[in-house]
């Protein structure tokens, strides 16, 4: 060894805080600030009266915090012509969310189950196609779908938007459950077959109870996805069922006259609330959902 003659570094018993570590923590601190800044600004802006916003600093804490803006955003902010606040949108979103999540998970898990454990002829082609089309932008399908729904008489309605969310959630949900069922030991399935259980019995009694973790992941994924949807709700939900995101955009971007930034930010936070609660409440599950949903194919 060439290093044999060189003196060795003096004892450094603690390698916890070297300059490199300081740099690392500085990097993490600064980037964390960048990611937190918008959330912070949203919160403080929503608590300030307009006069303070106009005169003060964007980053300053509110001098006299008040929840007036929140109350106004919830009950009386104007979305276009009506002024009933964002609560209408909140309720619409909930009415869209619950059936869409349930139905899309049911259909997706059943499809994934049939495709993973039962060798149906053409199953792989169906699955492969599903994975490819999942990447195609909505704009390609939207107009024909509008025509189809108006032809069937459903038009723009709650039922339409639920069906639409089920359709567009199908590839991801199928993928999620197919991969999960395929990862289970196949002996389990064979044992159930030997015991004489049929297709739906195995699905309902054995597979779905075992798939609880995947169901949690699917609920998280679909809840945030459907809640955050803008374009599908805009096109398919109809005037009376517009989801919260669409209402929010109307409140903020179609205001006449002077804009109430505090109300805007309160409404924005209210819209972001549910996904944030899901995210911070679910912890690692959210990451798992991303990982499971991200690996298409």
């Amino acid at each position: 060894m060439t290093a044999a003659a060189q003196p060795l570094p003096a004892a450094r018993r603690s390698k916890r805080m070297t300059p490199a570590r300081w740099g690392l923590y500085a990097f993490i601190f600064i980037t964390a600030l960048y990611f937190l800044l918008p959330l912070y600004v949203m919160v403080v802006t929503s608590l300030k009266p307009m006069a303070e916003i106009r005169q003060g600093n964007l980053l300053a804490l509110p001098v006299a915090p008040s929840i007036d803006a929140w109350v106004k955003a919830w009950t009386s902010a104007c979305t276009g012509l009506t002024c009933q606040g964002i609560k209408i949108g909140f309720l619409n979103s909930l009415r869209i969310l619950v059936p869409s999540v349930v139905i899309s998970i049911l259909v997706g898990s059943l499809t994934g189950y049939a495709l993973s454990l039962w060798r149906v002829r053409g199953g792989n082609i169906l699955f492969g196609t599903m994975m490819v089309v999942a990447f195609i932008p909505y704009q390609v399908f939207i107009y024909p779908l509008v025509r189809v729904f108006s032809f069937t008489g459903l038009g723009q309605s709650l039922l339409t938007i639920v069906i639409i969310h089920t359709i567009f959630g199908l590839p991801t949900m199928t993928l999620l459950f197919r991969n999960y069922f395929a990862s289970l030991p196949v002996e389990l399935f064979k044992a159930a077959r030997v015991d004489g259980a049929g297709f739906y019995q195995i699905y309902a009694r054995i597979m779905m109870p075992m798939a609880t973790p995947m169901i949690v992941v699917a609920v998280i994924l679909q809840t945030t996805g459907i809640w955050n949807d803008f374009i599908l709700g805009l096109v398919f939900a109809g005037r009376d069922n517009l989801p919260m995101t669409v209402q929010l955009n109307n409140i903020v971007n179609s205001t006449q006259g002077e804009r109430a930034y505090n109300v805007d930010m309160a409404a924005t936070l209210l819209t972001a609330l549910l996904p944030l609660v899901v995210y911070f409440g679910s912890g690692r599950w959210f990451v798992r959902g991303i990982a499971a949903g991200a690996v298409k194919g």
Partner: protein
Amino acid sequence: MRLSLNSRISAITALLPALLVMLVVYIGATGWTVWMSLTNSRMLPNNNFVGLRQYEMLFGNDRWITSVHNIVIYGVLFVSLALSIGFLLAVAIDQRVRAEDTIRSIYLYPYSMSFVVTGLVWQWLLNPTLGIQHVLRSWGFEGATFDWIVRPETAIYCLVIAGVWQASGLVMAIMLAGLRGVDEEIWKATRVDGLPKWRVYVSIIIPMMGASFATAAVLLSTGVVRLYDLSVAMTNGGPGIASEVPAKFVMDHLFERANIGLATAAATTMLITVIAVVAPYFYWRTRKGEMR
């Protein structure tokens, strides 16, 4: 294993909804859109075949050209920035830092929020009168200007800032999973070999993470083509048509300007672009699958 007739029928009926969706929605609707792009449909679809006329008009349309121009700028910047920032964040977190879970939550939470929310927040932050520019000036940087959002030539970069803020955490999560998959003994071997850490990342770790990069890149790029909500919420395509994007072009021409032929031509162009991105990726994945 032989399937009983009953179970076989059950399995097929269970797949019917998926099959129907595939045939009617995905393939049928795609086909119809492509067909309409070859007609002179305006308010309502018709079947007057006009060949590629709509495409000629599309690529002679200033707004479309701007949209394409914008999406290229956005796509290149957004994907490369999100990938590199996401990777750096993952590397930072992978150094056995304290409060790892908290830091990861902070990086990732924007991804749980909608594009509409993202767009509106950043619209407010970038507001020249009261936003960051105002803050900088109030701190004594009198000459500071940060008014990109109201200037046509820079508005698209504002979308990039917001998009990167929203999506970097996703990349971080994917990359961190990849980094955690690296065999601990490889790290030991590099220490015995005396390789500096940056060299290990550049020469050994990054080449190993091809799959993570590809996954993240494909995910981000399909998001690029879909970019719609962010533009609507943040700038509504403005100032003027400065931050228009293709998806918005399609939507506006379908539902406001009643020019279905032109809109579907634009949608078909988007479709072809996506296939051009996704097909090589799938080809690569399948080939890799066969090699194993």
